[in-house]
């Protein structure tokens, strides 16, 4: 279903709110992963506001769509998106990575309702998502399963095992969304371990592939809709993103993969985001 202008604006504002919360929580935590968290904000906002069938007051609702985060280091974007969706108070985001917090440095299923699996060690989210999709199919259920994956994870063997398995079982209830931001800890993915052509590789593994601009809300929503029409394959939405999206001074800079803004940087970043929010029409 095509989004109206009002819906797009609402989602854009939500994405901006998520980005502001990400910057604030990472600055407060004094450690964590900034670039990927920021670049997934548009996708997470679109999922939680528009795509997912979910109930923040009943996270274990049996009819919910599942969102499995595989690259757990971008937990801040999931925490912020969940908080703004109403799973828990936004203020709790400021406990990120602190002792006793439900918001662990990498997300833990047993601690925070709505987090569908524990992740952080890369490459094992997609196969868990496939397992969930298989179990739902055995039970004859219609719930959709989404899995957010990173591009760097496509250097892990486990990921390709999952790609084969999901295609073998024709898991059309499974949609993966890849954060194709081209960076990893040590630099560009194409320098560290060339991944291209990911589109061809995913197609060769018998997945339905949709390439989108991961910051275009209409494209994100349309791709999720298209995935729902595929009958005999899982879908890979390959979302081209800009690491650090929203903060011009750090956009595209791989060094922001695994560091957090200090207090002064956070002040500047938040001001930039506030100005941007005011101009969303």
């Amino acid at each position: 279903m095509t989004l109206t202008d009002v819906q797009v604006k609402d989602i854009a504002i939500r994405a901006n709110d998520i980005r502001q919360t990400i910057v604030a929580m990472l600055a407060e935590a004094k450690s964590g992963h900034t670039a990927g968290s920021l670049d997934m904000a548009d996708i997470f906002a679109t999922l939680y506001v528009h795509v997912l069938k979910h109930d923040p007051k009943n996270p274990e609702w049996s009819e919910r769509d599942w969102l499995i985060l595989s690259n757990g280091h971008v937990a801040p974007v999931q925490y912020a998106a969940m908080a703004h969706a109403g799973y828990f108070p936004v203020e709790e985001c400021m406990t990120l990575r602190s002792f006793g917090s439900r918001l662990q440095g990498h997300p833990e299923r047993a601690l925070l309702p709505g987090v569908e699996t524990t992740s952080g060690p890369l490459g094992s989210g997609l196969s868990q998502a496939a397992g969930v999709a298989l179990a739902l199919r055995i039970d004859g259920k219609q719930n959709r399963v989404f899995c957010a994956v990173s591009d760097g994870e496509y250097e892990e063997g486990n990921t390709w095992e999952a790609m084969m398995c999901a295609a073998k079982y024709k898991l059309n209830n499974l949609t993966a969304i890849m954060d194709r931001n081209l960076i990893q800890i040590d630099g560009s993915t194409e320098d560290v371990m060339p991944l291209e052509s990911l589109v061809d590789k995913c197609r060769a593994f018998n997945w339905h592939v949709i390439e989108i601009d991961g910051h275009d809300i209409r494209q994100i929503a349309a791709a999720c809709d298209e995935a729902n029409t595929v009958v005999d394959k899982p879908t890979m939405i390959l979302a081209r993103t800009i690491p650090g999206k929203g903060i011009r001074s750090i956009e595209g800079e791989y060094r922001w993969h695994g560091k957090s803004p200090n207090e002064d940087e956070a002040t500047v970043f938040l001001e930039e985001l506030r100005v941007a929010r005011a101009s969303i029409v």
Partner: protein
Amino acid sequence: MIHPDAHIAPNLFDKPDKAATRAGFGSGVVEAGKADQRVVVLTADLTESTCADAFAKTFPERFVQVGVAEQNLATVAAGMAHAGKIPFATSYAAFNPGRNWEQIRTTIGINNVPVVICGMHAGLMTGPDGATHQALEDIALMRAIPHMTVISPCDAIEAHKATLAAAKLGSPVYLRFGRDNMPTMTTSETPFSVGKANVLWCGEQSQAVIFSTGAITYHALLAARELENEGIAVTVANIHTIKPLDEATVSRLAEEAGAVVTLEDHQVIGGLGGAIAECLARTTPTPMEFLGAQNRFGQSGTPTELYEEYGLDVEHIKAAVKRAIARKSNR
């Protein structure tokens, strides 16, 4: 003498029945699947040798073949558990948990979901396949993971019971199985309760206690009988559940006998011997002898040849008992 409450097979020392512990898994998991439709079985290209074939035939819609992909085996199983299933993830112990340990730790252990990891072809018993396929470290690997229950059945009947029990635990379990047909020691009447040691053989005024796990326990019983004929009374306790360890029974038996021998088809580092030592060092420091692989890999050979070479045959057990007793009197 045979412990009267153990209800041991009457033909134990006279042409005992033989079956592989993996076969006990195969029958047990079908029964578990009939009792609870949440039970699913996954395998990694080893349907027949993991004895998952009967389940696959009975419940084809609840059987998942992931191919030669043990990391996927563990993580797909974890995902199915998130969605309410009770998955049994089967492969050889050398790969499951040998290859997929981190996936088990993160997606099954930390998540604390009821996946039953089934490691077949454990130990030197795997024989001719050689060192690569003889898992001798799996108990240590799995024992170190919080929430994980570790069970190593002594025969096919106990394996059947352990499989049924694992399906009901509601938390991560590791089940360890062997390949070969080995003597059936227990009967359907033999008590089995997860976390409870089973005394199979008890001597009057035992001078030593043998704590054993897995099919090799048969050697402990043969040794105990021979030692009794030599006038040395020993107790044999089958430690099918290595974690949680039955610390009360282990401590009491060690205290009563004053000398301990541990026996396992596994490295002495981190396995049953390690678990018993960790317990007794706290509760009842006791002279101990450790039988198992002594920081060595396995090699090709028949199980009989390997058990002799690695010190797990009856003669080595008897010698270890005598060493432990001698250390007690020298204190």
